[in-house]
């Protein structure tokens, strides 16, 4: 807490597009009073000042190189509460698409014979490196959910991140289901909270918010197959943001079968 009684919060970014930080700035458009409720002591994208005595750390971006780990650990040491901000931090996000190709090939493709100059490894969620208290899912995060999380933390509550799937919100919006329109969608197994924004704008949910706690994967894959997807296309659907999770699950299954 600072002297004015406002908890000090800091924002950090790792490998990301900074769209979640931008969404934080956007959330001020309708709620400038946020600045009265917390004291922001670090926010590189928006300010030059730097305070090191933060209580809550919002971390954007995934961990993609060994040197990120030390920085993450330092933040964890200082912060009483660590919140993963957005899909990159929460899931590894779109950065984990790298997984689908052997890493050397990726580096080679982009940097050619200079590949050795750059330090990088498989992208991973920050939870793979430090304990994370809460997460705000989404690529990008949802403004309202960000504000609700801040309020919940101030009240000493768990942030109200839903455990139910996107279909719940999609139905409440009375969208015609994409499956009815001959398209496909990851909504049934994806964590809600985005107000089903993608199906509402005519596009498949791509699972940017990660999976619900107990998804019925086998049934979901059957649904996708029934709507004409090949196994390869189903893998593609499952890996836009969640390659890390899908891979973890496969490895888990492999190790239990051993």
């Amino acid at each position, binding site marked *: 807490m600072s002297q004015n009684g406002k908890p000090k919060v800091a924002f950090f970014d790792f490998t990301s597009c900074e769209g979640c930080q931008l969404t934080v700035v956007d959330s001020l458009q309708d709620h400038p009073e946020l600045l009265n409720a917390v004291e922001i002591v670090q926010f590189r994208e928006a300010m030059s000042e730097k305070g090191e005595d933060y209580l809550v750390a919002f971390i954007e971006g995934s961990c993609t190189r060994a040197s990120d780990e030390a920085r993450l650990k330092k933040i964890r040491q200082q912060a009483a509460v660590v919140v993963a901000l957005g899909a990159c931090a929460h899931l590894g996000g779109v950065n984990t698409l790298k997984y689908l190709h052997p890493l050397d090939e990726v580096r080679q493709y982009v940097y050619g014979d200079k590949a050795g100059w750059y330090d990088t490894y498989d992208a991973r969620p920050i939870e793979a490196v430090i304990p994370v208290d809460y997460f705000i899912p989404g690529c990008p995060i949802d403004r309202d959910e960000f504000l609700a999380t801040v309020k919940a933390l101030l009240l000493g509550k768990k942030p109200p991140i839903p*455990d139910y799937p996107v279909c*719940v919100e999609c139905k409440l919006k*009375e969208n*015609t289901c994409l499956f009815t329109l001959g398209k496909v969608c990851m909504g*049934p197994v994806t964590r809600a909270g985005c107000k089903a924004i993608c199906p509402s704008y005519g596009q498949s949910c791509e699972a940017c918010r990660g999976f619900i706690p107990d998804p019925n994967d086998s049934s979901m894959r059957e649904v996708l197959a029934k709507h004409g997807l090949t196994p390869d296309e189903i893998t593609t659907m499952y890996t836009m943001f969640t390659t890390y999770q899908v891979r973890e699950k496969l490895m888990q299954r492999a190790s239990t079968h051993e």
Partner: protein
Amino acid sequence: MSLKIIQKSEILDFIHRLLPDYRVVGPVESNGGYAFEEISDPADLRLNYTTTILPPKKFLLPPQELLFKFDNTNGGHLQPGPEREPTVIFGVHTCDLHAIQLLDAVFTNGFADPNYLRQRQQTVLISVECLTPCDENSFCKSMGTLSADEGYDLHLTDLGDAYAVDIGSQKGEDLLLDYAASKDAAPEEVQRLNAVLSEKWPKFPYRLDFDVSDLPSLLSLSMKSPLWAELGERCLACAACTNVCPTCFCFDIKDEVEMDLKHGQRVRIWDSCQLDEFATVAGGHNFRKNKALRQRHRFLRKGKYILDAHQQLGCVGCGRCARACLVDITPVGVFNELYRQTQVEGKL
């Protein structure tokens, strides 16, 4: 009560005259289908719609409803939710009308629910007679909801260029007299109505393989049916079935606060027995721990539990859940399969 006639061309004027005094709601085109929406341009109304994703229930029991506001500055000052608007709902199909009658019972029996009732008392229901089935998913005829002799304020039947109007209540009669140009039905119009009604019934198939009065006992006998486990394998637990259902009324209650953390509101939001969390208590114990048990609960509620508590079936055969389900779990399919199983076992 007496039968009235209103010309189709008069409906637009009827709504125009209502608009200053009422929130007018009815089926309009939306997302390639239809939806009950607030109407600002009477020309948008589609009384010959097929079905909607969400039932008109959403105007009586909104997906998110303010229960009261609070100001916590000095320990708690409460302010009840806003006054409800007088509302006319046009185009309620008879299945949905039966569903609203059930909701009326649910929210009146025991501790009456002021939030629901405040809106309900200010709502005028104008139902329409269905003359062709919505699609292959509806099974209203099997559920006994293909017609209604009560529950509406006004009831319209399409006679071609005019609607026959049944008056179901004083509220309906007053509305008709004050806002619409109608006349008494002539004998030949009464005849036409009878003809229309008798022609419609054969067009609707029975979809249950047994009489609906056997449904409650069928379900009691089926508590241990292997079917539930099969459904559990398939069910995605997306809760689409309950969210679109006109008779589902389970809810959650949540607090929302402003950024000052002092002012806020308590809201009621739709909940679903199909979601993992629904029956989970602190410590993680879930009293219906898998999808199979939750599906069983859903169907027993529809065909038995609600009947036990409120003397009306909890399913009106609208078919919405069947349309919404991605893995083809449908009441007709489930009920018929349970019936088949009991037949094989020689139980019923």
